[in-house]
């Protein structure tokens, strides 16, 4: 499985080919002239494939040529600077693979136009003009010998060419669709072994919209009939074209592509991950749009096997990039889109959630995968109590069974991550709880509820018993939380030393992200005047951090900043659930926080 070095693969995805040699060096010109001769002389499919492989680079080269031609003051000068250009353009115009690509065609025509002199002043310019006129005739006119349908029906060449291509595609698609029948007798051979060569011929045409039905037919056939072998070049061309958004496929075809070729699925996931990770700021709605555009959630809803592979890739990626908060948001977004795609399916076609999450206890699946937006707000606390209790149970069971069952704890934790909305809700509820009089009975139950929420958050940021300090850690967290609440909700403003102590104890928590989460939640959701104090604490903490470890500051600050960004984005999303008055207040606080954070965490 490729995800053993996911980071490496991501780097490759991000790396563009950065070589930019001098545009018209002798070797480069020789290279292209040799290639072009090869293509114009051979008519075999392999020569075609070579032309397709170089299509992108050829376009780049033609852009350079065009640029150089435009700079010249007249055609003679252009021909002097680029003596090879006549032969190059002439030969390229006679390679159908090249001219079938609209962009390359356009570049070729522009080059020819630039070289054409409206007022030729020398013999060479006259010759060039003649040659260009001949080439244009050849490109434009129908050179059909004998009786021509086009001429005898009286069709303009554009209409005729469009019709012919569309009909040919249609006929080939029908042939593919009809060529294999499940009711065929076992002795009869289906015609599917001819599809390899057909798929090879489609490689130059993969990005044409007319070819989409044929591509779909070929891919779907490859999944239903074992005799079908599609050419690797074809699959590669379709995969790259789809990832580069040069061709649009429907969900069925994409599912067939991914089922047929596992590495194309891996690439699709990695492409999504790398594009999200390298994006600027996090915006949940854009994130959801990006995820949906990749067609991964829809494909996963249709095929359980695809979902399991994608989930596995996410798991591996997460293990390698534990600290990436953006990745976590992506996983949440993906799960959200996936669940929506699942819900949108026909109830008859829908698979049970169990099949998608085989390693998680059924009792946890429904509660954790129900989106907070689907549960009425007054039930949120109860819902979370249930989840917290289940998680504590699962965690305790795992501990009893010994260390080698950390896998099951991971699965449960991963599910919590996927249905991430609940963690945000837990933080929100925890932070917005009011203090009650110490001795009332309701306060003890509300205390236990707060404790359960706190436990959930601690579990989320520190799921495993690494270092075997769990009990100590838990005590520490409760203590810190108590102090924090005390400081923030005290009726009188706390003395600065108290703030210092609290700040230090926060910093001593194993998970700095838990600390950040607690602080930010208080800053956004706590009743007044807790938020102001929380803000002060944030400033203090970042100062202290900077004093302490100057060397590691950069990375830590960046990752903390990303984390803060993500948390704020999530908070902004969830504020939509609360009533308008509260949401206005939250909105204002979010703005203040953003400013503070930018100043505090990025100097």
């Amino acid at each position, binding site marked *: 499985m490729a995800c053993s070095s996911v980071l490496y693969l991501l780097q490759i995805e991000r790396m563009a080919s950065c070589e930019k040699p001098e545009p018209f060096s002798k070797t480069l010109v020789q290279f292209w002239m040799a290639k072009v001769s090869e293509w114009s002389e051979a008519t075999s499919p392999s020569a075609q494939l070579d032309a397709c492989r170089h299509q992108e680079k050829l376009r780049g080269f033609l852009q350079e040529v065009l640029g150089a031609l435009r700079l010249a003051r007249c055609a003679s000068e252009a021909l002097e600077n680029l003596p090879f250009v006549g032969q190059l353009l002439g030969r390229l115009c006679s390679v159908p693979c090249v001219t079938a690509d609209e962009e390359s065609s356009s570049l070729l025509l522009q080059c020819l*136009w630039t070289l*054409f*002199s409206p007022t030729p002043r020398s013999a060479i310019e006259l010759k060039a003009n003649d040659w260009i006129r001949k080439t244009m005739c050849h*490109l434009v006119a129908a050179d059909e010998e004998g009786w021509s349908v086009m001429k*005898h029906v*009286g*069709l303009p060449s554009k209409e005729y060419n469009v019709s012919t291509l569309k009909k040919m595609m249609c006929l080939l698609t029908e042939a593919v669709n009809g060529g294999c029948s499940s009711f065929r007798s076992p002795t009869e051979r289906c015609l599917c072994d001819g599809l390899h060569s057909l798929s090879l011929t489609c490689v130059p045409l993969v990005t044409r919209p007319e070819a989409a039905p044929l591509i779909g037919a070929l891919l779907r056939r490859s999944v239903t009939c074992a005799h079908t072998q599609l050419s690797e070049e074809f699959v590669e061309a379709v995969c790259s074209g789809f990832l580069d958004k040069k061709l649009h496929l429907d969900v069925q075809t994409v599912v067939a592509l991914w089922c047929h070729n596992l590495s194309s699925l891996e690439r699709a996931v990695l492409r999504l991950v790398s594009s999200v990770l390298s994006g600027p700021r996090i915006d949940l709605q854009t994130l959801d749009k990006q995820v949906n555009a990749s067609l991964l959630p829809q494909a996963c809803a249709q095929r359980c096997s695809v979902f399991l592979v994608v989930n596995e890739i996410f798991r591996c990626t997460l293990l390698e990039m534990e600290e990436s908060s953006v990745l976590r948001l992506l996983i949440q977004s993906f799960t959200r889109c996936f669940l929506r795609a699942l819900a949108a399916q026909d109830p008859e076609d829908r698979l049970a959630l169990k099949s998608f999450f085989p390693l998680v206890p059924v009792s946890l699946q429904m509660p954790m995968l129900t989106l907070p937006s689907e549960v009425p707000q007054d039930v949120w606390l109860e819902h979370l109590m249930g989840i917290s209790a289940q998680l504590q149970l699962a965690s305790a069971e795992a501990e009893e069974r010994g260390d080698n069952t950390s896998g099951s704890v991971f699965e449960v934790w991963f599910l919590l991550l996927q249905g991430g909305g609940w963690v945000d809700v837990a933080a929100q509820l925890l932070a917005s709880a009011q203090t009650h009089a110490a001795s009332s009975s309701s306060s003890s139950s509300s205390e236990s509820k707060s404790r359960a929420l706190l436990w959930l958050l601690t579990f989320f940021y520190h799921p495993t018993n690494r270092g075997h300090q769990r009990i100590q850690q838990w005590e520490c967290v409760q203590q810190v939380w108590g102090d924090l609440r005390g400081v923030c909700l005290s009726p009188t403003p706390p003395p600065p030393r108290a703030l210092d102590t609290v700040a230090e104890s926060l910093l001593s928590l194993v998970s700095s992200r838990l600390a950040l989460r607690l602080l930010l939640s208080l800053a956004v959701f706590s009743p007044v005047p807790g938020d102001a104090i929380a803000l002060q604490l944030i400033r203090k903490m970042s100062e202290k951090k900077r004093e302490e470890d100057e060397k590691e500051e950069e990375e830590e600050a960046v990752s903390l900043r990303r984390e803060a960004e993500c948390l704020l984005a999530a908070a902004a999303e969830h504020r939509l659930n609360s009533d308008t008055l509260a949401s206005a207040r939250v909105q204002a606080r979010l703005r203040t926080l953003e400013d503070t954070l930018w100043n505090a965490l990025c100097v």
Partner: protein
Amino acid sequence: MEAILKNLESTSELIAISQTEYVKRWDEGTVERAFQWSDYCEHIYKRFNTNPTIRTAIENRLRQTNELLRRTFTEHRDFTFLDLGRCRDVLLVSLLKNPACPCSVIKVILGSFKPNDRWGDGPVSMGFSDLTGSISFKSAGEVLRATNGNRRDTRGLCVEPLAKGSILREHIQNLLSHNGNESLVRSLLDSLFQPGSENSAPEIIAGVLLSCEDFPAHDVTRNFIFSWLQANPNSILNMCQALPVLTLTELAQQSEGFWLAYMGILKNWALALSYDVTVGEWVASEGSGVPFTALTEHFRSLLSSGHSLERETLRELRELKEGDGGFEERGLSVWGDVLSELSTGQRLPDAANIL
């Protein structure tokens, strides 16, 4: 109507001039107007080409104009009614090929090729929107054609003649759906089988017939073509010589008349064979007919086609064998030998079962 005819007359004069030295007086404005008029011609063609009265009127006027132009310009190439439908292409090629056409005019034309992304100064109304599109479609077709040239479908035809045939069928169907166009379609089919272009004719006609589906409109077209074929037996011979066996069987299934003609041709070919005792084979006399093996293949295909055609062909073969004396020995009747060739390896249905 007269206005239209006048305009067409003027346009054909314009096209004529574009092929002569007088084009050197043209400038950007002239050429723009020429293309606008060509566009107009294309619209007229599309609108009226199925209307026999108007078409005749236009053809007459064009004929008159052509006569006049021939007197003025010695190398005048007639501008026909069909050219109207492709007027802009005709004009473009005339200008490109004419050495007298000023370079500045060519420059303007070339620059108008992509109005959405104009990198020339050509006016939008030049009408050559999306030439790159046209070229890329043409090349894409060539790519498919070059690599799928030998891929035949279950009915034996390649993808290109089927596509062309389909386009032609649509046109014929369109014509036949309006009254008075029968003779035009007949002359169209005549032109298809004219000497010189016979190579592509069988495949294209087969393409037309095989692209007909089960709609009443298609039936009209199919019947018309089959009756034209009956009236032109040479064409059927041509087809039997050129087309794959599967295709001929398919056509025989579509029309009984075709089947009869087909059988007639096969009989003639069989009669041209004589048995060479020294070699033990049926050989074609003077190399004119078709070899025995090929003949057998034709019948093999007919006999695996489907019930009624199979039945009829088998009955026919048996009758012919009886007519020759009904002998079982090899070498006495070509029909007997064909039958015995076919029955090895394939159990032919009993007479009792079919009849």
